[in-house]
C-alpha cells in the first residue's frame, strides 16, 4: 500500500505502459547492431538527453523557489557558438580543437547562467521576469551569431557527443546520466541539497540561520545555464548544424512539466531528481509513442494532454480519495489542503 502512495508510482507506471506499447509497435525494441545498442529504447534514451539535462538544471532552480525560462535560448546560443567556431576550423575532425570549442560554449552558457543568477539574487528581480529577458533576447543573440542562417558542420568528433556510442551505450545518454549522478552525489551526499531546500523554503530564515542564500541561488542558475548549454551542444551535434530559430524552442515548458511530474514543488523547498528523470523520460517516450502508433498530427497535442491530465489526477491525493475513497469508506475527515509555507 505504501508504494501506491509514493508520488513516483504513477508516473513510473505510465512510463512502463508507454514502453510496453512501443515494444509492440516497434520492429526492434532493443537489439545489438554493429557492436552497439540499436532500436526504439536506445533511440528514446539518446533523444531524451537534452531534455534530461535541461530538466535537471530546472529542478535545482525550482528547488530554490525560482524558475529558469531562458534554457531554450541558452541552448540555441551554445549550439550557435560551437557550430560557428567549428565551421571556421581548418580541420573539423581535430579532437583537441573540438573539445576546446565545446569548453568555450559551456563557459559562455555558464556566464549566461551567472547573468540570470545576478539579476535574481543580486538585483532582486522576480525569477520569471529575470529569465524572460534572456529567453527573448537570447534567441536574438543566437540568430545574430549565425547571421540568421543554419550553420552546417562536418565534424565527426562533434557529432559523436549526440550520435556516438561508448561501451555500446549512446554517448548523449551517458553524458546525461553522468550529470544526474554527479548532481545526486553533490546534493544528497553533502549538505548542499539540504541548503537548497532551506533556501527554497525561506531565503530569509536561511540567511538568518547562517546560510549564504544568495550564493546558493546564483549557483543554481549558473548550473542550469551550463546544463542547458550542454543540452544545446547535443541538440546541434545531433543534426550537425546550428538552427538558432528552433533549437530548444519551448523546451522550458517540457522541462518544467518533467520537474512537476517528478514531484518537485514549484514553490520551492522540495525536490526530487529521480522524479525529474522519470518525468523527462516519460515526456520523450510519449513523443515517440505518438508517432509510433500513428496518432494523426492534428490530434497529437490533445493525446499528450490527455495523458498528462490523467497523470496529474493520479498524483492528486484529493482526486484519488474522491474517486476511489467510496470503495473503502473511511471516517469523513476533511481533506487537508496543503498550505504553502
Amino acid at each position, binding site marked *: 500500500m505504501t508504494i501506491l502512495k509514493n508520488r513516483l508510482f504513477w508516473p513510473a507506471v505510465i512510463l512502463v505502459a508507454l514502453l510496453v506499447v512501443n515494444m509492440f509497435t516497434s520492429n526492434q525494441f532493443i537489439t545489438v547492431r554493429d557492436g552497439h545498442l540499436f532500436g526504439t529504447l536506445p*533511440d528514446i534514451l539518446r*533523444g531524451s538527453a537534452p531534455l534530461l539535462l535541461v530538466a535537471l538544471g530546472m529542478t535545482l532552480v525550482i528547488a530554490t523557489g525560482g524558475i529558469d525560462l531562458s534554457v531554450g535560448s541558452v541552448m540555441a546560443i551554445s549550439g550557435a557558438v560551437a557550430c560557428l567556431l567549428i565551421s571556421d576550423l581548418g580541420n573539423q575532425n581535430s579532437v583537441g580543437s573540438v573539445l576546446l570549442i565545446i569548453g568555450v560554449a559551456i563557459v559562455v552558457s555558464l556566464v549566461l547562467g551567472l547573468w540570470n543568477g545576478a539579476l535574481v539574487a543580486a538585483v532582486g528581480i522576480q525569477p520569471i521576469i529575470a529569465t524572460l529577458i534572456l529567453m527573448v533576447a537570447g534567441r536574438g543573440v543566437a540568430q545574430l551569431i549565425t547571421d540568421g542562417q543554419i550553420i552546417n558542420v562536418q565534424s565527426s568528433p562533434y557529432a559523436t557527443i549526440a550520435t556516438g556510442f561508448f561501451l555500446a551505450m549512446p554517448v548523449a545518454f551517458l553524458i546525461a546520466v553522468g550529470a544526474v549522478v554527479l548532481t545526486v552525489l553533490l546534493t544528497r551526499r553533502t549538505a548542499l541539497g539540504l541548503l537548497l531546500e532551506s533556501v527554497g523554503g525561506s531565503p530569509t530564515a536561511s540567511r538568518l540561520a547562517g546560510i549564504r542564500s544568495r550564493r546558493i541561488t546564483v549557483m543554481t542558475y549558473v548550473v542550469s545555464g551550463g546544463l542547458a548549454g550542454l543540452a544545446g551542444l547535443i541538440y546541434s551535434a545531433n543534426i550537425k548544424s546550428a538552427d538558432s530559430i*528552433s533549437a530548444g524552442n519551448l523546451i522550458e515548458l517540457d522541462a518544467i512539466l518533467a520537474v512537476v511530474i517528478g514531484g518537485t514543488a514549484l514553490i520551492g523547498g522540495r525536490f526530487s531528481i529521480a522524479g525529474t528523470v522519470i518525468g523527462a523520460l516519460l515526456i520523450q517516450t510519449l513523443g*515517440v509513442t505518438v508517432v*509510433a502508433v500513428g496518432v494523426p498530427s492534428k490530434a497529437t497535442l490533445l493525446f499528450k494532454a490527455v495523458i498528462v491530465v490523467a497523470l496529474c489526477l493520479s498524483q492528486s491525493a484529493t482526486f484519488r480519495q474522491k474517486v476511489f475513497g467510496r470503495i473503502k469508506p473511511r471516517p469523513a475527515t476533511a481533506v487537508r489542503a496543503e498550505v504553502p509555507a
Partner: protein
Amino acid sequence: MLKRLSVAMVGVVLLGSALAGCGSKDDSTGSGSGDGKIVLGFSQVGAESGWRTANTKSIQDSAKAAGIELKFADAQGKQENQITAIRSFITQKVDVIAFSPVVTSGWDAVLKEAKDAGIPVILTDRAVDSQDTSLYVTFLGSDFIEEGKKAGQWLVDQYKGKTGPVSIVELQGTTGAAPAIDRQKGFADTIAADPNLKIVKSQTGDFTRAQGKTVMETFLQSTPKIDVLYAHNDDMGLGAIEAIEAAGKKPGTDIKIITVDAVKDGMTALSEGKINYIVECSPLLGPQLMDVVKQVKSGGSPEKRILTKETTFTQEQAKTELPNRQY
C-alpha cells in the same frame, strides 16, 4: 569637433536644397522622385528566415536592375508596423505599393485608403482575406497545392508500370500552417492516381531538422518497410537523412526522398544523391514583381493571381544549378 559638425551641417543643408530644387522641377508627376522613375513602396514581413532574406534581396536587386526607385520598410513581423508603412507610402504618393502581409486579416481599412488615393496595391507571397478583391490589383506568390502536386506527379511517374505496393511516409510542416495543409493535399490528390502508392505514416516535423530527424527515427523503427519519404521542406528532409544513415540505410537509394523548397543545403544533398527530387518554392520573385509594377503603372491590368516562376530539380539538374544558388 564643433567645426567638423558645422561643416557637416552645411553639407546637409546644401544637399537638401539641391534635392529640393530637383524635386520642384517636376512636381507635377506627383511622385517623390525627380527623374520620372517609378516609385515602389514595399513593406516586408521581416527577416525571420534565410528564405525571407533571399526574398528581400531579390526585390532590392531587381528594383535596381529595372530602374525602379524602391522605398523599403521592414515590418519586423508586426501588422501595425506594416499599416504605418503603407500609410506613409500613401502620404509620400508613391506610384505602386507592394507588401507581404504579416497576417491575413485586418487590411480593409488601410487598403481602402490606398484605393481612394489612387495607388494600386500588389500582394506578394502571402494573401489577405478581404472580401473586396478590388482593394488589390494582383497576388503574386507560390501555389503550395501545385508544389504538392508536382512532388506527387514525380512519384507517380517513377512507379509507372511497376506493380507491388509502395509505402510512403510523410513529414508534414507545422500543423495548421497553409504550406503544410496545401502540400499535403496536393500530394495526396495526385498519388491517388496509382493505388499502389500508399501513405503509411504521416506526422508533423514542425519544418525543423531536429524534429524531422526524431520523427523519422520512429518511422524507421515502427514501420516494416519504407520506400519513399515525402518531406514538406528541405530541412525536415535533411534531418531525416541523418536518421536514415544512422539506421544503416542509404538515403536516396534504399529510401527515395522528395522535398520542397530547394534551399542551398537541400540542393547540396540532392546533388550528392541523398535526395531524389526537390520541388522549388522560390523566394526570388523580384523580377516578376517589377514586371507587374511596370505593367500596372502603364495602365495594364495583370491577372488577379500570378504564380511565382518555379521549377523542379532532379539530381542531375541540381549539380548544374547548385553554384548559382543564392540562399
